[in-house]
């Protein structure tokens, strides 16, 4: 790959983020017509990727890269092979039409610019997911898609249902994302490979590892939540609260397939084990059936489509889980087909809603004449979804049946696939036949054809589904074969024909599917009633469970907060000091760090005297019954400390301590005389004893720790350094001063800043008058206010500021 095209590719991958930044500005000036201009961005990205179709279909891997955080080995490196390219083309291609569609759908919406912005952010993130080579980069993009999905689902944030759906999607996919991160970290630790390229070139590294099971489960946790596999399927139908362009783009064509992408991407290294071929088909099959059955129950077009999306994702996971070549080929084809027809059908559902005012199929009918273009697009897409020729959906179904028949437990897998497909057939038929055929029903709005912005997307996607089938051979060569090669980890050959080469089991199964589907469609009303009855009988589902989970979480959080945060400072302080005492004493006792029994210290008589003064000062503070005694006693112990500094060779400290103590006593005296408070302790005796025990424990802890430290040898290197260089390089003889103003000058600068800041805070505290006091409307507060205070404030103010100087 030439440097120029590397730059272009990286530019293409990052351009959606730039588009997200300019979209609101453009929309402000051009209104909904900005969509035409903005759609150029994904179109150009599509063209850039289209240039790679040739080389990639010949087996090349394109690896554009930029160093990002080299010290951690995190690179902005990309891997573009068949799988990545197919996804990238789908994202940018469908994205182009979604942008146009969003222009028409949210025409006149005050936040349309923001909406475009979110869509572009998502597009950039999703392109990143499918092209990222570095596992960490992949994870970051993965989480970005979850976040943008949250923003888009909650776009209409004034409705509680939107907020709930957004939060639910974020919690479920974000939780899965965490599992995925753990999985990736385990993969990196076990194999030492940070990039997919390295990982894929070492296919046995994971399968043979003893950590295979945890890695498998963690990766599945990410993939299953993102791709809405049972029992995590519930967030996807709820995500339909989002505006329809979002449902069409994120929640059918692209984002929800990220999980499938991940499984396909890691298939060469994780797949084809007994665990893989058991768990994936099991959950995939269950999701397929649950999705279609729940879909049959719905009458809302978007919800019907949403549940079939769940079902289709289940089908894809089931097929990926078989690890049979033919079934994997079917999965790739179905993936292509599904993105095209489901994207189109969602946009059709949105158009119907937009033009007719409802999406309920029981209130729609006979729109065929009023909306002919939409009708044609819907029919083409639905025929593909039904798996009828000559559409890509038909070829996909033929191949996947061929594949399921080859699986070990083929009968079960095939039966599940046939049943699921038949139910999807019925839903697809209902989605088109109910609104467009039959007698014309009066709708809330007078229905007519939507503008070109609305029908361009459905037409383009459904026609692509037809063309891809008509040019089956080319589709197979350019898209399916390279993608399949990525899944298998070796070159694959794919031969696709629109007309089945021979009449065999797959064609027969297709006929059975169609027959069953027609049967289901005809008995739709009865089936719907039966399912609704059964669901009411069960009464509980994961969706309700989510509500209970959130309510429980809030309750636990409240209880914990109430328990820990009692609003009593004494409780907090007691906890802090009890833990301080424990953390000082326990290590000493456990690690045998207790000091040796010291000999009786040898002090000179005046030293004893000063110690005695300090002790007397402390005792007097403790027992002081009035303010003045307390203040004076505080001064006594402070001056004793100053004398201790003096005796042990620290005259600077001594000076400072004298000044500070004097100032403290003066300020304290000034403030205390304004406060009519006694320093005496009025608590009951038992409370005093409990406090005394904790206080003694803290004191003993510090005492023993200090003894134990001073009994060990002392490392004097740092002090010697200062002593040696103080005069030589800093030209000062007072080493303490040199350290403060020179060696550690920045510390002193910080100290001065703290003092200045404290001074400002004091000033603010005094200056802020009692305007806000009326908010604390308790009688006591008013009483205190009533006192004349201006004088006292000035009195406190002056000395405090002086002290700062």
């Amino acid at each position, binding site marked *: 790959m030439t440097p120029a095209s590397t730059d272009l590719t990286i530019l293409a991958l990052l351009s959606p983020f730039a588009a997200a930044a300019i979209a609101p500005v453009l929309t402000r000036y051009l209104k909904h017509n900005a969509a035409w201009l903005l759609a150029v961005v994904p179109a150009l990205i599509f063209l850039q990727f289209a240039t790679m179709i040739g080389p990639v279909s010949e087996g090349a891997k394109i690896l554009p890269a930029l160093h990002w955080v080299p010290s951690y080995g995190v690179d902005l490196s990309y891997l573009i092979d068949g799988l990545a390219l197919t996804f990238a083309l789908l994202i940018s291609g469908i994205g182009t039409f979604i942008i146009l569609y969003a222009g028409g759908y949210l025409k006149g919406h005050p936040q349309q610019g923001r909406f475009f912005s979110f869509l572009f952010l998502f597009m950039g993130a999703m392109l990143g997911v499918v092209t990222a080579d570095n596992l960490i980069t992949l994870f970051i993009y993965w989480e970005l898609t979850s976040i943008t999905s949250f923003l888009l689902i909650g776009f209409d944030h004034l409705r509680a249902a939107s907020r*709930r759906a957004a939060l639910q999607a974020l919690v479920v996919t974000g939780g899965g994302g965490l599992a995925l991160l753990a999985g990736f970290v385990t993969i990196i630790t076990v194999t030492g490979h940070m990039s997919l390229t390295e990982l894929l070139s070492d296919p046995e590294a994971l399968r043979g590892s003893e950590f295979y099971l945890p890695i498998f489960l963690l990766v599945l946790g990410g993939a299953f939540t993102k791709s809405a596999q049972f029992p995590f399927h519930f967030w996807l139908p709820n995500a339909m609260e989002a505006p329809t362009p979002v449902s069409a783009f994120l929640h059918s064509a692209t984002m929800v397939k990220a999980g499938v992408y991940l499984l396909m991407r890691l298939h060469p290294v994780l797949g084809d084990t007994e665990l893989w071929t058991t768990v994936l088909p099991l959950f995939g099959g269950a999701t397929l059936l649950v999705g279609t059955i729940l879909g049959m129950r719905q009458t809302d077009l978007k919800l019907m489509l949403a549940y079939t999306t769940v079902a289709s994702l289940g089908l894809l996971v089931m097929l990926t889980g078989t690890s049979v070549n033919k079934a994997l080929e079917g999965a790739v084809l179905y993936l292509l087909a599904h993105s095209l027809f489901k994207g189109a059908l969602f946009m059709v559902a949105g158009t119907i809603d937009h033009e007719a005012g409802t999406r309920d199929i029981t209130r729609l009918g006979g729109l065929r004449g009023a909306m002919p273009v939409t009708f044609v697009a819907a029919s083409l897409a639905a025929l593909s979804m039904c798996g009828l020729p000559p559409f890509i959906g038909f070829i996909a179904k033929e191949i996947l049946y061929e594949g399921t028949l080859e699986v070990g437990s083929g009968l079960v897998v095939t039966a599940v696939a046939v049943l699921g497909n038949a139910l999807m057939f019925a839903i697809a038929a209902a989605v088109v036949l109910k609104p467009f055929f039959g007698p014309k029903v009066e709708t809330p709005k007078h229905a007519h054809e939507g503008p070109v912005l609305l029908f361009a997307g459905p037409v383009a996607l459904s026609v692509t589904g037809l063309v891809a089938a008509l040019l089956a051979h080319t589709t197979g060569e350019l898209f399916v074969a390279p993608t399949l090669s990525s899944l298998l980890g070796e070159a694959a050959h794919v031969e696709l024909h629109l007309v089945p080469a021979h009449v065999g089991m797959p064609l027969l199964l297709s006929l059975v599917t169609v027959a069953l589907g027609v049967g289901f469609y005809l008995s739709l009303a009865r089936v719907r009633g039966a399912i609704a009855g059964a669901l009411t009988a069960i009464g509980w589902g994961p969706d309700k469970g989510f509500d209970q989970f959130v309510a429980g979480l809030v309750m636990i*959080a409240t209880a914990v907060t109430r328990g820990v*945060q009692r*609003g009593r*400072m*004494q409780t907090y302080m007691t906890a802090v000091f009890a833990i301080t005492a424990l953390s000082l004493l326990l290590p000493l006792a456990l690690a045998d760090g207790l*000091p040796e029994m*010291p*000999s009786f210290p*040898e*002090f000179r008589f005046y030293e004893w005297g000063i110690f005695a003064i*300090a*002790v007397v000062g*402390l005792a007097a503070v403790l027992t002081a019954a009035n303010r003045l005694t307390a203040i004076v006693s*505080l001064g006594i*112990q402070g001056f004793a*400390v100053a004398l*201790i500094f003096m005796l*042990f*060779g*620290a005259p*600077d*400290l001594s000076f400072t301590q004298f000044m*500070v103590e004097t*100032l*403290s006593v003066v300020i*304290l005296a000034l*403030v*205390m005389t304004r406060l009519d408070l006694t320093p005496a*302790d009025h608590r009951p005796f038992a409370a005093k004893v409990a*406090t005394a025990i904790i206080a003694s424990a*803290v004191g003993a802890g*510090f*005492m*023993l720790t*200090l003894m134990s*430290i*001073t009994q060990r040898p*002392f490392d*004097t290197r*740092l*002090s010697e350094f200062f*002593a040696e260089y*103080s*005069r*030589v390089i800093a030209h000062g003889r007072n*080493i*303490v001063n040199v350290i*403060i103003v020179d060696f550690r000058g920045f510390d002193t600068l910080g*100290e001065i800043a703290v*003092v200045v800041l*404290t001074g400002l805070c*004091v000033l603010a*505290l005094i200056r802020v008058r009692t305007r806000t006091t009326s908010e*604390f409307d308790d009688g*006591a*507060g008013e009483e*205190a*206010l009533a006192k004349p205070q201006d004088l006292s404030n000035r009195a406190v103010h002056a000395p405090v500021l002086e002290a*700062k100087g």
Partner: protein
Amino acid sequence: METGLSVLIGLFFAVSVYLMLSRHLVRILLGIAILGNAVNLLIFTAGRLTREVPPLIPEHLYTLVTETANPLPQALVLTAIVISFSFFAFLLVLAFRAYQELGTDDANEMRVAEPEDDPLPPQGY
């Protein structure tokens, strides 16, 4: 020597913690003032004690030749004294203003931020 001072420092800590565990602002303030002294003495003593000789380089010399007190803890403590003083001054004014506004010096009765009958947080979305 260090041992003897350790006992004294333990006493300083015990007294300051005892005072801080009281409910009354005045006692808490006194405790904080003493805590500053306790910590400063702790740092000072941990750097080992030397009697009377300050860390000054004689006029005619370029490095220390005689045994002097350890300059490093002194530099640290010098900073700490000033910081703990400004901290004390701030707390003092804060306590004073709190008493003016709230009309109580009992920490347990200061419940403006966390009222006793605080309603539950919202349960919905």
